[in-house]
């Protein structure tokens, strides 16, 4: 069980080598297979997540949530997906067509790229980049541009407003997000996510870096444009923000990308603060799934609890609270590390 996926991959590469392919092509094919698997998992996962989100929001509001299609309404999102796939694709006449069409693709590509560095289990990482965490942050920052593209090309005031808000929000929250992760990096002594996971074999970093975790969690919520920081969408004021003009599958791609980002951010939180794939009894890939889902549940819980925050409060929270707090956290962490080193740990 533990090495299920690794064995599958090894069998596949052995088989390809036996067919007479060079190592380069074998690796390429394996990479394609891995990415296909990731995209497939993401898509299927989003179906579950949307259902889960609707169920949880229902329970929190003492409703039942979807319950018509299948047991507990579990086929509801499948039906929704089919509906979105078959819907008419409308592109408004006054849009910037090229950008309008590329924006959702750009968004989903960036979101999927995030998964390259996340260790999904023991020795299960697509690219074990030595600057994995930094990769995550910098690639993640590109989602801003996708939203901006969508908002600008729609030629709609709501879209543009949503895009503007999104940019302001994401640029502001990238800073505390990166700073909060620095504490973890300092303790682990590496930007490599596998190394960070390995560094937590004795103690989870949530214990050592609680402030960093809280800062990360808040900043990540803002980065994800999720409630209570869903200003860019804010359906009550901006219809659907940057996605207002999108229909059918293009809109679904945005939806997909948002949930993909949610999974990625949660998986990163599990990796950085909750020991990643480490855990007893169950296979490692199971552990990361469980942890990721638990963190996503908290994200959903927060979204359906807190009211949307005002834009200026949002900015002042970032610049006046989170940035100083995360800076102080870095200072304290640095001093602490030196003290412990001096004590001979």
């Amino acid at each position, binding site marked *: 069980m533990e090495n299920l996926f690794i064995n599958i991959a090894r069998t596949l590469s052995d088989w390809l080598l036996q067919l007479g392919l060079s190592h380069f092509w074998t690796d390429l094919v394996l990479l394609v297979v891995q990415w296909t698997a990731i995209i497939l998992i993401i898509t299927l996962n989003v179906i579950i997540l949307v259902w889960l989100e609707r169920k949880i929001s*229902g*329970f*929190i509001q*003492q*409703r*039942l949530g979807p*319950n018509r299609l299948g047991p507990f309404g579990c086929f509801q999102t499948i039906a929704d997906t089919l509906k979105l796939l078959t819907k008419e694709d409308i592109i408004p006449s006054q849009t910037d067509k090229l950008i309008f069409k590329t924006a959702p693709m750009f968004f989903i590509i960036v979101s999927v790229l995030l998964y390259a560095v996340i260790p999904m289990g023991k020795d299960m990482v697509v690219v074990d980049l030595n600057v994995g965490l930094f990769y995550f942050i910098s690639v993640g920052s590109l989602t801003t541009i996708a939203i901006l593209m969508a908002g600008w090309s729609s030629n709609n005031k709501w879209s543009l407003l949503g895009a503007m808000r999104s940019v302001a929000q994401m640029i502001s929250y990238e800073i505390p997000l990166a700073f909060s992760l620095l504490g973890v990096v300092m303790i682990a002594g590496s930007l490599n996510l596998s190394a960070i996971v390995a560094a937590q074999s004795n103690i989870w970093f949530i214990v050592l870096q609680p402030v960093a975790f809280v800062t990360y969690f808040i900043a990540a919520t803002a980065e994800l444009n999720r409630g209570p920081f869903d200003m860019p969408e804010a359906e009550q004021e901006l219809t659907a923000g940057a996605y207002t003009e999108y229909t059918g599958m293009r809109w679904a791609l945005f939806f997909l990308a948002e949930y993909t980002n949610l999974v990625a951010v949660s998986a990163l939180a599990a990796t950085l603060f909750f020991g990643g794939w480490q855990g007893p009894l169950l296979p490692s890939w199971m552990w990361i799934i469980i942890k990721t889902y638990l963190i996503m549940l908290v994200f959903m*819980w927060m979204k359906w*609890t*807190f009211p949307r925050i005002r834009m200026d409060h949002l900015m002042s929270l970032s610049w006046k609270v989170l940035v100083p707090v995360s800076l102080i956290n870095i200072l304290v962490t640095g001093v602490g590390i030196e003290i412990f080193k001096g004590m001979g740990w």
Partner: protein
Amino acid sequence: MFGKGLLKGLGITAKHTFEREITQQYPEERPHLQDRFRGSLAYDYPKCIACGLCIKACPNNVLTLETYKDEGSRKKKVAYYAIDLQYCLFCNLCVEICPTATLYFTHEFELTSYDREGIKKEYHRPPELVPASKTAAGPAEEDKTPPGGETDDKKVRQMEAMKTALLKNPAKTLGKILPAEEDVAIMSSLMQEDDKILTKLAQLLVEDRDKAAKVATAWVKKGRSSGPPPGAVPPMADGTPRSAAGQSSAEETAPPAADSREAEGGVGLPAEDKAPLGDEADDKRVRQVEALKTALLNNPAKTLGKILPAEEDVVIMSGLMKADDKILAKLTQLLVEDRDKAAKVATAWVAREKKRNPGEGGPSS
């Protein structure tokens, strides 16, 4: 401070998550409705007394009431009642004001329909009531008109019992509605004479005692004025026409019809009592007028004596009548309609005749 409120909020939502869902799976699960839930407005046809209070109370003109009266009756009855629920705001005012609890709210709340007319609730007169009132030729049939639909048998039985009681022990039964003993005697004799009176009185007693008392009083007064019943007090010339005639539905059932009295030889001027009748009694009045004409020609002195005090005036008048048929007709009509006016007109005619032939005064009779 420092996220305490946030944690509190999270706690609340967490608590709600594991509480029982309040969703009702509507089509499968029927909602529990409180007793005073206001669903569709309903109308209980037999109970309605057509008072129209609900129409006045309704702020949105939701309600429509059309009434009819049975011939000779002043009692309004419901011909048609409609509740146009699309305008109803379920304010309960009509239900509050309804004196007989005819209007009430049901628990039915699925009021959707495919067109605007579909949401309108209409109540028509039950079909068994429609022909009875429309084909009613004579006044006699009206009395049989039962007031309500489903309570018919019960009423009939009650009425039979009441009739028996009235015949067997008139003093006791009538004593409740007629204070004077002599009135009771007159009434009981009237009842025994005419079965119609008996039926009517029994019905009134069953339905509405006060009304029965009034009607009975009216009959008794009329009975006194018309003389013939045994033990009746001497006939009073002018009776009490207005009060008697004013009593609804008493008129038709009153046995001593004017014409019959005239045919007997005429006592006083009973025809006048009939004066303020409604239009529906037209041919009856024609008959009265004819009878009065005959009386005037046959016995002018007696008839004219009532309106013309001086004897010579009576003589002149009777002469005029005989000479001119028009005068006769006019006078008769006036006498039937308005006695005072008849007197004035007659006096005027006589005065004019006197002026025209000052010396002459010899009537033919």
